């Protein structure tokens, strides 16, 4: 699949606020199609809030979110629902439905939005679980598998309908470095084979440097984004001290900062 480079998601002058408390203001950036895009920033800076704005769980105080040439912020509910069908989302916890088996978790959106027969739904659900390395776990309940497996099962549910765009909120939080690396590889190969755009919230530096094509940095101090670009370039040529500190895990400027 040819990677078209037009903007898939555009955020225009977005201001996020809870009442009078402004979380972030004047965010403007675009996510190119088939990119792996990271939203980075320190804890509590509003990464997850931005994530919730992108998928329409929160309404912007000002500004707009566009998907292609559709204004998502101003769209009617049915347009939003239709767009959301092209989203695959995982939340910070695995958010698997605890009363359903893994196959039922993955199969629920398939049953709702496709014409597949129950046997085919199970077949496709088993395939999606196999894609994330959970072959044979169809009849397990979420409580019977480990945290890392739950994260992967959530990923399988997110890709159930072959989404155009995948949103992951801290997918590797709480995973060991090897599982986290495997999850990165998985996301990369899913992107490469399905051609989906991936938007991730994370502050896992190894993941960011390994798979990110593009990223933005949200700065708590000035309450807006202070950097946008490829994270490896941002690390080598940091536009400001906070980005440098973040990408080098707080090393003093000029000591460890220039490592390749």
């Amino acid at each position, binding site marked *: *699949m040819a990677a078209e480079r037009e903007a898939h998601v555009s955020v225009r002058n977005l201001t996020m606020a809870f009442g009078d408390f402004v979380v972030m203001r004047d965010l403007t950036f675009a996510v190119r199609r088939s990119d792996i895009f990271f939203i980075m920033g320190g804890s509590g800076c509003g990464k997850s809030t931005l994530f919730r704005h992108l998928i329409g769980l929160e309404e912007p105080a000002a500004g707009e979110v566009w998907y292609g040439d559709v204004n998502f912020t101003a769209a009617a509910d049915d347009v939003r629902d*239709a*767009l959301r*069908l*092209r989203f695959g989302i995982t939340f910070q916890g695995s958010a698997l439905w*605890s*009363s359903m088996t893994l196959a039922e978790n993955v199969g629920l959106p*398939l049953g709702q*939005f*496709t*014409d*597949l*027969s129950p046997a*085919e739904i199970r*077949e*496709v659900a088993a*395939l*999606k679980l*196999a*894609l994330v*390395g*959970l*072959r*044979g*776990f169809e*009849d*397990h*309940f*979420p*409580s019977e598998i480990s945290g890392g497996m739950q994260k992967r099962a959530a990923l399988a549910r997110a*890709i159930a*309908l*072959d989404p155009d765009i995948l949103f992951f909120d801290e997918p590797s939080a709480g995973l060991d470095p090897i599982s986290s690396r495997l999850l990165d590889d*998985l996301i990369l*190969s*899913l992107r*490469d*084979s*399905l*051609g989906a755009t991936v938007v991730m919230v994370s502050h896992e530096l190894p993941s960011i440097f390994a798979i990110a094509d593009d990223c933005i940095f949200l700065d708590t101090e000035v309450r807006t984004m202070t950097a946008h670009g490829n994270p490896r370039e941002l690390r080598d040529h940091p536009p400001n001290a906070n980005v440098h500190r973040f990408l080098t895990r707080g090393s003093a400027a000029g000591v460890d900062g220039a490592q390749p």
Partner: protein
Amino acid sequence: MPGAVRAGAARGRGVGPVSASPAAAAAAAAPARIAVQRGAGDVLLVRLAGRWNLRAGLPSTQAVEQALAATPAPQALEFDASGLTAWDSSVVAVVSRIQALCQRREVAVRGGALPPGLQRLLALATAVPEKADARAAAAPPFLARVGAAALGAWAGTRASVAFLGEATLSFGRMLRGTAVYRGRDLALVIQDTGAQALPIVTLINFLVGLIIAFVGAVQLQKFGAAIYVADLVAIATVRELACIMTGIIMAGRTGSGFAAQLGTMRVNQEIEALSTMGVPPMDFLVLPRMMALSLMMPLLCVYADLIGMLGGATVAVGMLGQAPMQYWVETRQAIGLGDVALGIGKSVLFGLLVALAGCMRGMTCGRDAAAVGEAATSAVVLGIVWIITLDGIFAVVTNILGI
């Protein structure tokens, strides 16, 4: 999808007319197809063509199955994806199904002509082999299930007794002043189980008093004994109904709340956090709740006594035309301090039982959302069962003792 078409033809299904994206709608033009051709040298050529879309369903692989079963059996199967205009995981599903079919018949599969992305996905799907112990064992036989249920019931009873014992020990620690809990928590639970329960206690007990008086009046009037409505209402309310109704209200309102709250704390591992910090959850969580309910229940019961008799008086004065003073005098003659004390004493025990049921179900809750719901439900059921059973025992015992 309303009006979705399911045309299960051998060459692929129709596409549902209602679709979210324009791309899916366009797929209707050239639906997914599978064509099978027996090539030279016993090679089966499977052509995949058209726009494949998961939302439209999977085309049938029956033709491939038939061709594989034909004699002489084909030696190899080759894919041709040159006619494929768009694809998604529906192709992956169908190709893996065909691969599985071939594996069973020991036919070699040549997938080299498939799009590179598709090949990567297929490799990914088979990258992690199935764990030998992944699949759950088959359901145990009937007798084993009966045995397991009986053992489970026995274990549940033991756990209940153990919980009761722990609660008693915790109560002992409180009397000695060594229990760790926050007065603020106790005050909050007292507020929730006391003052905030007043509206529903008022409503239910007033209506129950009213109903008893009304039903009683209809019968007693036949004998010209309507004056005894006051006796009926007073005895029924003070000895039984006030404490039972209040107990049941508290089981539904507070017992379930305790179970849900403690259950959610267990799901969030808050209870483990307490015990690893050396704070016994029994003292910190269960004790304040049991104390609050057993302190508030008698107060609510006294209040319910008054409200119930007020309900009776409303019928007597409003419907039967009795004088309020007459009702009051009759009520005072009907009941003594012993009757009131019996009701209040029972209400203390009911409060303890409701708190015990709620806390026990919450503390032993499972670790997911469904388990919290089950804990809340079973806390209410258990609370009500205990209340009614205990009240039955009291009725027999007080009858024998002549109280």
